[in-house]
């Protein structure tokens, strides 16, 4: 066992230990989410009203062990967290993807072409940022109705302005550098310059925004689910589990603590990994 570990360590000697740990945490959470139907000890929706709010480790009727306890309806918390991870991760990943795509494209175009495109896009950003995001999300859900993909769409299409601001400012900076002028003189078109030269050089700050947004997206999804506008019960997400558990926090701390702990661990890991990736993606800092 020690030998096997040492062998793995030798192969990954360029990666710091902290990053390995963080990567393992993310891998475990992602694997748990994917494998939920096979590894969950119980049906996450089966209620057992006689076993309500049981603490972690309780052995229930019929010999079932509630490893992380039960919630207010006697449902197995571990199973609910495992299934909830699918929703939380799915919504966060997809909405970050949508908003990055929309935000970065608009930001680069505004920063490159300037003129009226700049004015239109950046004023739209100002308007979007001046409306409280949660209000906008509530209004959109109210029109579209709740659901997984609608949630992704709502979050993706309300959170892009942050990416646009970063991409815009970075593009303005990079666009004036001589190597961009040289590309123009070489005969490269706007699309080639933007995607081959500007985008790789602004990817670092955008990655940072995306990783911090990832955590926020999980929390937003939680908030919307709490308001009844997100995932509809009995389906669970980490956010909805915590929202329900909030009422019982004095009697049953575990309902909030375990999904909350998972959330903190995941968001922290993603941020640390994002930070490291940004440095790593920069060829100047690559050690050879």
């Amino acid at each position, binding site marked *: 066992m020690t030998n096997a570990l040492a062998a793995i360590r030798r192969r990954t000697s360029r990666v710091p230990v902290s990053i390995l740990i963080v990567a393992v945490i993310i891998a475990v959470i992602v694997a748990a989410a994917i494998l939920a139907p096979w590894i969950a000890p119980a049906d996450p929706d089966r209620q057992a009203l006689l076993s309500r709010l049981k603490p972690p480790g309780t052995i229930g009727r019929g010999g079932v062990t509630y490893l992380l306890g039960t919630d207010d309806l006697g449902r197995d918390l571990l199973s609910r967290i495992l299934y909830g991870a699918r929703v939380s991760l799915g919504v966060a990943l997809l909405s970050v993807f949508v908003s990055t795509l929309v935000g970065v494209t608009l930001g680069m175009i505004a920063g490159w072409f300037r003129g009226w495109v700049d004015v239109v896009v950046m004023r739209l950003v100002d308007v979007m940022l001046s409306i409280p995001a949660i209000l906008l999300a509530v209004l959109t859900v109210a029109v579209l109705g709740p659901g997984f993909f609608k949630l992704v769409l709502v979050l993706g299409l309300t959170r892009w302005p942050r990416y646009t601001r970063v991409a815009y400012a970075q593009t303005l900076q990079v666009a004036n550098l001589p190597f961009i*002028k040289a590309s123009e003189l070489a005969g490269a078109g706007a699309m080639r310059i933007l995607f081959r030269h500007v985008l790789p050089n602004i990817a670092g700050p955008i990655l940072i925004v995306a990783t911090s947004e990832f955590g926020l997206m999980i929390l937003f999804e939680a908030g919307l689910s709490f308001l009844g506008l997100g995932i509809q019960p009995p389906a669970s997400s980490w956010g909805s589990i915590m929202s329900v558990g909030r009422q019982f926090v004095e009697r049953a701390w575990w309902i909030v603590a375990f999904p909350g702990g998972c959330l903190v661990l995941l968001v922290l890991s993603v941020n640390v990994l994002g930070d490291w990736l940004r440095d790593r993606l920069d060829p100047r800092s690559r050690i050879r």
Partner: protein
Amino acid sequence: MTEGARVLEARDVAVHFPGRAGLFGKPAPTVKAVNGVDLVIAAGETVALVGESGCGKSTLSNAIVGLQPPTRGSIRIAGEEVNGASRRRLRAIRRRVQMIFQDPALSLDPRATVGATVGEPLLVRGIARGAELKRRVAELLTQVGLRPEHAERYPHQFSGGQRQRVVITRALALEPELVICDEPVSALDVSVRAQILNLLVALQRRTGVAYLFVSHDLSVVRHIADRVVVMYLGRIVEEAGRETFFADPKHPYTRALMSAVPEADPAVQRGKMRYVLSGELPSPANIPPGCPFHTRCPLATEICLAERPELTPRPDGARVACHHA
């Protein structure tokens, strides 16, 4: 000089930047960076463009390659008009005129390999691709004293001199007729300056390219130029062949520039007449009336305040804009 041999013919070029009005207050005055410049460069010739920072050298260079549209005037590259050219025409013209920038660290995309950078002009113009592109890039790199395997590396893995070699390679990849060198050695260590200058000269012999060599370093200019043009506040004030220029500088501004260059021989240095300019370079947003140089000129008289001297030819072939020289 025959008509067909002119790679650059600029007539009365001006670049003005209109001042933008503030939210309150009155609009800022127009900055006249380049203010009526005539410049002709023959094929295979090296013309040095000299002047202080802020005299319009870089703006003029940008206008010539079409990065900065001129306010008025005509710029012809090998007979093709740049001013007012469509995007498409401009792209075609740029095959014949390229640029080398001052700071090689900023002239190369840090995220692109040297091979990708050098090959880009060939790739985007559909001249070469795949294995053929790789071969051409290797050939180009060898020409400037780099090795073919350098194509796989990133700019940060090279020294300043090597990076400038890469920049030169990219500029020459399309076999242009004119290359604008915007202070190509001023960001480099003194020890590698001569190497880069010699490389530029060697490449010129081989390909017959013409250079517009923008610099404020007269010792570099002496080494490389066939002809020297001096700019002051957006206008040409003196223009002469290299020998004439260095043997007999005429405009008081040129003499001041010359006297600032230290001589190797201490005896010569001590005996040298010193022209020290008083005052700062006036703002190009507020150019003095009459001769623009009169505010700092030791020879200035009343006529200089009233009338701007035109560039007039002298017996030895030089052209000077001064009432007294």
